């Protein structure tokens, strides 16, 4: 299957989904959050470290390669669960945390296809960011379901799980 490079392509249950690459506010929220989380949680500067945080990694779900593929806006792995970064572009360890940033073109895909997929594979935490409404929803997986752990908005300073060790100023995410 060939998809032009200006699109993000994802494959879930045999369906190919293509979405425009993030732009504007959406991109700002994603790169802003990456910049806030990487020093304390990935580099271990000003925080506990112990994580790998990646921007738009290509995550392969399930035992068979190239069958279920999504590209979350951000994903994080605890290093004890993924000691080594994969050599190729395929991330095959289930992430411990995923962040998806809502946009009108990806809203339903994120919430009705990708969220159930992530739950089914046991991702521990999911953040949904809506840059338009300036809302961060934090979900925790409990008994196989996404439970609303917290919903933050506007310019709140938050300690949101699983990254409660460091305070994040939400206003840094909004353009």
């Amino acid at each position, binding site marked *: 299957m060939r998809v032009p490079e200006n699109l993000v392509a994802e494959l879930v249950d045999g369906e190919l989904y293509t979405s425009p690459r993030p732009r504007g506010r959406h991109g700002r929220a994603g790169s802003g959050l990456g910049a806030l989380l990487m020093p304390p949680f990935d580099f271990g500067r000003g925080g506990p470290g112990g994580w790998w945080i990646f921007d738009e990694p290509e995550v392969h779900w399930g035992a068979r390669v190239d069958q279920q593929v999504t590209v979350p806006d951000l994903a994080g792995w605890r290093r004890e669960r993924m000691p080594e970064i994969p050599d190729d572009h395929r991330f095959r360890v289930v992430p411990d945390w995923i962040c998806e940033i809502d946009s009108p073109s990806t809203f*339903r*895909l994120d*919430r009705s296809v990708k969220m*159930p997929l992530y739950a089914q594979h046991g991702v521990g935490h999911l953040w949904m960011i809506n840059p338009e409404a300036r809302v961060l929803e934090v979900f925790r997986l409990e008994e196989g379901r996404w439970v*609303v752990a917290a919903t933050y908005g506007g310019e709140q300073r938050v300690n949101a799980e699983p990254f409660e060790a460091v305070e994040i100023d939400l206003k840094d995410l909004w353009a």
Partner: protein
Amino acid sequence: MSGATYEDLLKVPDLFIAELIGGHLFSSRRSAPLQLRAQIRLVARLFPLEERGSWIFMVSPALHLGGDVLVPDIAGWRAERMPETPETDGVEIVPDWVCEVISDTRLDRGVKLPAYGRHGVPCLWMIDARYRFMEVYVLQNGQWAIAAARGRGAGRCRAVRGARHPAGRPLRSGARVTRGDLAPPPRRAIRSLRRPSAR
């Protein structure tokens, strides 16, 4: 009053819905046509349950729960929990189900959803008419859990298919809600319905 403008009209308090949640006052504009259409279509689908005598529904009731005043877009009570229609201004019986048609994401998801949870509403539907999308939340150990999500591509979310809840089941089996009920179908969406699926 002569020479009134739309600005004057907006100052009229009746155009706002006022809610009191955790000691904070929230005033919101009334829903826009897109949300109102979704609301009326959903009410039409649910009404057979009311006629059958199993549920009582109200559109935008003022729920007086604890110190809070919450106004959901639609609320439902199992008939046995509301044998008489209250003659008070508001309703003090916790609903068995509420539905929010999102008009303000921050208020609906960030403030009202947690408030309904605190008051023990067991089941909530969150409808986004712009995206023709709905989520079913159920209260699980005092926390909101997503039991199902339906939108375009609903047939594909196998992980949540069949997720049921005692409060959700009678509503769903008695009144099947399709995405067509969530908003008037724009032409683009009709095309997408016809697009052959991979399976």
